[in-house]
């Protein structure tokens, strides 16, 4: 039997979740694959993968609004860095509402990897969100774990940050995620270009 890669495991979890009428995927490019995690989902679930303009603030806020109105949105940010454009919703609104009522929603974020991703495509903000009241942060470290965590995140009662790393997408076995305690520029990129920074 051929094992699923990390990206395939996430995609299968999303595929199953999308059968629930309240689950939607939101993203600027989610229709086109997101490193394999959303490949084919638009074709398999017409109308359930919503394309957004380049407006992270609205996209993230609208995920919160959809959740208030009874949906379970999965909001895809192609790079963790881009969530910074939506910080008012992420910091000032979602945690406050989650304290008062059910607010299921998932932010599926990707940390970039080498190849010169640079200081604006490879930062990992996991520690920030772990220290912010209101968010549950998932950092899956194997394909199997990614599938179970994704279902827990989508069908839970509160906001979830689901952190994935571009460098692990094709892995079929467990791996260790290197989560820096300090948010560093070129974080993931630096790991792949160690010789350049040595």
């Amino acid at each position: 039997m051929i094992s699923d890669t990390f990206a395939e495991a996430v995609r299968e979890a999303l595929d199953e979740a999308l059968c629930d009428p309240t689950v939607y995927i939101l993203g600027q490019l989610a229709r086109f694959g997101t490193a394999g995690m959303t490949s084919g989902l638009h074709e398999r679930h017409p109308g359930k993968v919503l394309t957004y303009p380049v407006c992270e603030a609205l996209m993230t806020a609208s995920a919160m609004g959809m959740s208030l109105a009874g949906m379970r949105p999965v909001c895809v940010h192609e790079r963790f860095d881009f969530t910074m454009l939506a910080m008012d919703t992420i910091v000032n609104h979602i945690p406050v509402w989650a304290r008062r009522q059910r607010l299921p929603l998932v932010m599926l974020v990707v940390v970039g990897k080498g190849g010169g991703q640079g200081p604006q495509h490879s930062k990992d903000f996991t520690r920030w969100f772990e220290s912010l009241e209101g968010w549950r942060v998932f950092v899956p470290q194997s394909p199997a774990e990614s599938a179970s965590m994704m279902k827990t995140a989508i069908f839970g009662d509160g906001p979830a940050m689901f952190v994935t790393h571009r460098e692990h997408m094709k892995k079929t076995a467990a791996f260790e995620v290197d989560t820096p305690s300090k948010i560093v520029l070129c974080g993931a990129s630096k790991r792949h270009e160690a010789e350049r920074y040595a």
Partner: protein
Amino acid sequence: MSDFVGRLRNFELRLQRMIHELHPPVHLCLGQESVPAALHRCLEPDDWLFSTHRNHGHYLAKGGSEERLVDEILGLETGVNGGFSGSQCFSDEALRFHATAVVGGLIGVATGAALAVSLRGGKEIVVCCVGDAATEQGVFWESINFAALHRLPIAYVCENNEWSVHTHISERQARPIAPRVSAFGVRVCGSIEDAVYAARHTGAPSFAEVRCERLCAHVRDMDDLRHVR
């Protein structure tokens, strides 16, 4: 003066008399009652109402309880959010009412709620109240574009009192608001009632700007520096 406006005016005057006993920031809507009065006339129980820091009138218009609101402002457990939120950012899930203390903070959220209503073919509409200053936030224009693009059932209501705390609109905006909204393909209506009617019966977004005059300080008993240049 209608029964509702009289009740709202009395409610706010009562808060103004006790303002020194209130700890949280309290923004009264004295002088701006025409907006809540219109919402009171035309909103249905299933409609969603997203509001601002100056929200007491909007909340009572949606059927909110005066007692639970006062208790919230006083920080009591019997408040609408158990005293957690205070005056300016409380919500009442059962009434589909949500307010925020961050200017423009719920515009995208309201737009998302309208998207959810549209996706499931609901009959209700969303009303998103903003002040004139909230239209200066980028997310306002992101939302107007998205609502027009997807024909969302939402009425954006701009309560224009011309002042952002002490700063006049002439120092903040180059052009009038309504023509800019119209350019995005959102129907501009002459009244709140027309905007609500349009959103309800066309399922498409609408916008109404209401001119009003704030007859009290921006917050609590803050010095009013509106006419200082």
